[in-house]
């Protein structure tokens, strides 16, 4: 059972790593819009200009 003395610290290091990654992802705005990216995959054209106007009309619609 002494292995626990190694495993728990290792788990803690892992948790620290996860928290760090989570902070980074919040900071980089990955949690800002949880709905948009799901729809993005359905949009065919990759022309950024078109996307902008689309986003605009969507806004005024709602």
């Amino acid at each position: 059972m002494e292995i626990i003395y190694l495993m728990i610290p290792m788990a803690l290091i892992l948790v620290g790593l996860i928290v760090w990654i989570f902070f980074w992802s919040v900071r980089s705005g990955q949690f800002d819009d949880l709905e948009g990216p799901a729809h993005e995959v359905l949009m065919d054209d990759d022309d950024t200009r078109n996307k902008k106007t689309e986003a605009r009309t969507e806004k005024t619609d709602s």
Partner: protein
Amino acid sequence: MCCKGCEAVAQAIVDNGLDEFYRHRTENAPTGQELVPEFLRQARAYDHPQVQKTFVHVESDSVREASLILEGITCAACVWLNERHISALPGVLEVNVNYATHRARVKWDNTRIQLSQILEAVHNIGYVAHPYDPSHQERLIENERRALLKRLGVAAVLGMQVMILAVSMYAGDYYGMEVEFRSFFSWISLGITLPILLYSAAPFYRAAWRDLTHWQTGMDVPVSLGISIAFAGSAWATWHQSGHVYYDSVAMFVFFLLTARYFELVARKRAAEAGQALVHATPAVAIRMTVDGSKVQEETVTVAELVTGDRVMVPPGDTVPADGEVIEGRSSVDESLLTGESDPVGKQPGDTVVGGSINFESPLIVQISRTGEDTVLASILRLLDRAQTEKPAVSRLADRTAAWFVLGVLILAGMTAIYWLQHDPERWLPVLVSVLVVTCPCALSLATPTALTAATGGLTRLGLLVTRGHALETLARTNRFIFDKTGTLTLGKLRVLETHSLAQTDDASLLTIAATLESRSEHPIARAICTAVATPPARIDNVTSTPGSGVSGEIDGDNWWIGNAAFVQQQSGTAIDPETIASLHAGGRTVVWLANRAGVQAAFVLGDELRPGAASLVQYLYSTGKAVTLLTGDHELAAQAAASHLGITDARWNQTPDSKLAYVRAAQQRGDIVAMVGDGVNDAPVLAGAHLSIAMGSGAHIAAANADVLLLSQQLPHLVTATQVAKKTMRIIRQNLAWAVMYNLVALPLAAMGYVAPWMAAVGMSASSLLVVTNALRLTRQKKTGNT
């Protein structure tokens, strides 16, 4: 020396023989100027009239009003504290804080207090106030959301570790566990819980501390107390290697509470969104046209730079930057944001346009007449803001109860702890923690404003502006609706209702002749006849008009007359059958006669048309058991005609504003809750006398109309929606309050008797607040489906 204080200090230093200090110091001490915190120096800038122009509304010479955002509001107690603190300042006339939007509306006397002093006072009690600026507020909410998400993430990930260890320890209780491992697990749990306590739970402590330093008890006080006691008790048990540890409860409680807060934040944001749409209506930049000698120059300027008299160019697809008058170009604009009406409105030179409307077809050149806080859009926003910051009676009661409730809980918790210490010292800690944690005063204070903000915001999108906090509550209780006729149930504009051909010519060509005769006249009757005809007027010569009687002219070589009966008979030399005259004039209608040399050719009956939807509104009101009364200054025939068309059984005519008011008073004395619906301009005293005043509002009248509800869309059926929404809002508020009372009545005794483990208390309390907020949010969801 900058002040007496410094002089005294310097004197003291020299007197004590410490003047060596001045010889050896390497740099000057910061002066008073530098010690003024950056914040305050910024606040001073807000006193400048030029800076105030963008966010302060000047009501009269010295009375000003501004919208501020408050940072650091976490519960109803904060709202209460801010309101009390600011209103205690001399010179502050009125202050209202909206919990849902975190906005404060402050009215002050500029000769007695400066805005910076108000900001400073807020700063002194631990909050930060900024002038309201939509983009700034959005950034604040966004930052708050990110910070909360991080705290939530930490609580979740670390909480899971604590749970894993806790489960092993629970298992150890049954199957046996070496003391060495138990102790190790406890210490590790303590280490993991510490960041949850110090980082994730920090906002609770901060809020609780602020409450306590001001002798307040907010809902953060029992929360902080609960987790601190649970943690301290566990740490003591860990150190002494005896007794139970509750790290898992602490972690779980913080996690649940943060989750509830996170959803609440998102909900608050969503509830405030409808009003936000208006804020974003005005663009940031405009194209200003300046005449430089003979050529016209276009330059892009920010909207804030525009002043009255500037000419701006509005290309199709762009938003009109401020109120003004069209001086060049023809187009149609979409004013739906302000009126809820989605059909574009035609505009030509001379017409007024309001800032925030969208130009559709072709470029318009607009001369700006009002900017900044004076625009129609700004006054709508101000009214909406006022409605959302004013609290209805039910909400005020809840706020007051919440503060006492928390105090009661603290006392009860103390008594419970004493009782258990005497009877079962083993269990006093978990029971105390449960009592502190299980109570949920949030439903009392938090759900009401959320529901109200969501409801008023949704109605605004329909073109129905609620301007008073009590309006929805009163509307739900109203049992008598009193309508004014002209301009309210009717359009208030003359229209050709009937065409009677007295010769063998068809109606359409007679109307065309009439319109041709009247085409040069600006008289309301002439306008009504002209708008009834689609074809453009024919050629006409020798037009002469006799004011008050009629017009004559020559069309295709034939002489025609149009006007009242006497004029037409005299000019054409023919008599009209008196019976025809009498029958057409029946019901007090306006009749215009058309004649040529051959005799009288036609009669046009003009009248005020009923507003579309008026009948269905009246029908709806009757079907829901409300009393409906028609009060009009018009004569009997006109009043009865309108009443019978609409199905109103109770009509009163020849009313003066005074007698209308007397009628409203009498109805109120009989115990009726009276809503008066009027056009807002002529009915001001009656509107003011009713419990609830509803006015038709459009354009520039908005600021002047002193009504509780403004029907910007001028669509009567929207009142049906409004009554339904009002009822639903009140129902949801009642449900929430009932839930809050019931939950606390059941949960508190159970917890005090020791039937609720700390972790159950954590789940119960968080679930209860979530339930209440989600219930309030139903208001936004329903509205959207009903709207489209």
